[in-house]
């Protein structure tokens, strides 16, 4: 991508130059703490772009998780709070119920959402809470150093499954988004991936649909995003993208599991 930093550009040239890339309003100018090759920072960026495009920043409230993205509330330039581990959907419910005209979203990892917070997401979906859930699935507990998550692939070695996850004793990978798609309260449930530029663009579109579904009051919207954790996968950042494509995608195919009939800009495609 072309990054244009204003202070590096001679003032005289500025008039002639077109700004092709800049920080979205919905992001602060803090440098993130994420590892090289981590998907979290890029996903923040996609969310912020969507929030800018929809013009909803000043009435959006974000709920950050416990996980590597715990400081998401520092990176988003909007009102936000930090939930207890897994409880973001409950906290978001409390916010949305008293501020129904606001846009409320949670940002959660796979350990946060699919393990400790399983009950909270399930029941928020059951009630059809008008919230948007950005579910970042990197198949491990990133923050605590790469332990097994419910989403860890069969056979995948983690610090707490050193011999590789054995589904017979440690369970099979959890397909939470597909589960949620079966619930009438869910308006939009899709899986996307960050393994290529093209897929990243599709991810952004899905995030946009998810926020639109909330604006239309259709129910809970969730975008699961297959994301890279090179640090805990012990691979180089570039190889991590191939790891998503070659290892994660066969278990977690991208796709639309539920798209509510009423969703306004469905024609935007994926």
């Amino acid at each position: 991508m072309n990054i244009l930093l204003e202070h590096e550009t001679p003032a005289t040239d500025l008039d002639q130059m077109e700004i092709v890339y800049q920080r979205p309003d919905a992001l602060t100018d803090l440098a993130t703490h994420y590892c090289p090759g981590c998907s979290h920072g890029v996903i923040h960026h996609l969310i912020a772009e969507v929030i800018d495009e929809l013009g909803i920043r000043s009435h959006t409230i974000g709920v950050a998780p416990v996980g590597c993205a715990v400081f998401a509330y520092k990176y988003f330039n909007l009102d936000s709070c930090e939930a207890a581990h897994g409880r973001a959907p409950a906290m978001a419910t409390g916010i949305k119920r008293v501020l129904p005209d606001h846009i409320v979203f949670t940002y959660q990892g796979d350990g946060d959402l699919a393990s400790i917070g399983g009950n909270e997401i399930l029941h928020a979906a059951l009630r059809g809470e008008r919230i948007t859930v950005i579910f970042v699935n990197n198949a491990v507990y990133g923050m605590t150093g790469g332990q097994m998550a419910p989403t860890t692939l069969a056979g995948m070695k983690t610090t707490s499954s050193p011999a590789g996850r054995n589904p017979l004793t440690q369970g099979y990978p959890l397909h939470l988004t597909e589960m949620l798609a079966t619930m009438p309260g869910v308006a939009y449930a899709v899986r996307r991936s960050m393994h290529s530029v093209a897929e990243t663009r599709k991810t952004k579109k899905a995030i946009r649909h998810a926020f639109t579904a909330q604006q239309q009051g259709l129910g809970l919207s969730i975008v699961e995003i297959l994301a890279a954790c090179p640090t805990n996968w012990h691979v180089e950042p570039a190889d991590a993208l191939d790891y998503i494509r070659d290892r994660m995608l066969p278990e977690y195919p991208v796709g639309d599991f539920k798209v509510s009939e009423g969703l306004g800009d469905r024609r935007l495609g994926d």
Partner: protein
Amino acid sequence: MTRELWKGNEALAEAAIRAGVDAFFGYPITPQTELLEYMARRMPELGRTFLQAESEIAAINMVYGAACTGVRAMTSSSSPGISLMQEGFSYIAGSEAPCVVVDIMRGGPGLGNIQPGQADYFQITRSAGHGDFHPLVLAPATVQEAVDLAYISFDLAFRYRTLVLLAGDGALGQMMEPVEMPPMRTPDATQPDWALTGAKGRPPRTITSLYLDADELASVNARLQEKLKTIAAAEQRWECFMTDDADLLVVAFGTVARIAKSAVRAARAAGVRAGLFRPISLWPYPAPVLDGLVDQVQGVLVAEMNAGQMLEDVRAIVRGRTPIRFLGRTGGVIPMPDEITNELTHMTRVNHRTNGAGMKRDVE
């Protein structure tokens, strides 16, 4: 003003409504459930938020979320549910979100039973969650007092940005008494300057309990401790009943205190000059007042529906100056007035026998 017959749980709910509660989130548990059911009926009628949560964990986190937007949010539960809420209490304390929680205590440990209990005194006053904090704990003894305390609970919660815990027991929740309900208040519409309302025309606000830097967290804790000191100095509440000339002092709270009142009257009728000290705020404990009474009495009887929890506070205040006797009932057994009176007459007899020099065996 007219007095009407109200059930404790429902009276608490109506008082919170009249105090302006905006949002209630809860989960059924005996002996508290009528409070939730009352809210389920009344809150939607008034255009306010009611939601039955999937668990107490979710309920307290919904309260937390709603409280972050500056509204008056509350939940209610009973002992096992309060255990599940403790994670939330800690986050709420760390991020100073004001809210109100009602705990209608029952018998424990474990599933225990649904009889009245006070065995969660430590839990609510000492260890309401991980980290250094105390909720402001108020323990009414009558339905009227429950109403009056619920009515001011949001003012306290917002004044100090703290969790206010109204601690009753199954007896208080279930009993019916004549009550004078306070008038419906029009809640103050001004938004607190910390509330999450959307960053429109102002810099964004964040609410968090996370401070990775040790010095930063230390200074947050220092500020929280300062606040607790302010609360401790300003918010002690108690009742002294016939203590002026008392030789023996009963110390009891909540339902037991109310039983102790009858016992004190009966003891006086039998010629024993007894009095009752009843802490209404369990945290902060009204220590200075009790401390002042200790020197005038020949013995203190602590009565609780637990195995001796407030007893530890009383011991620390008495500091060996006078004998302490303990009457504890567990399992949901409520002490009878004559049991307390018998303890008091026993104490005078022992006092006479030993010439006030101390009591053997069952005293310390």
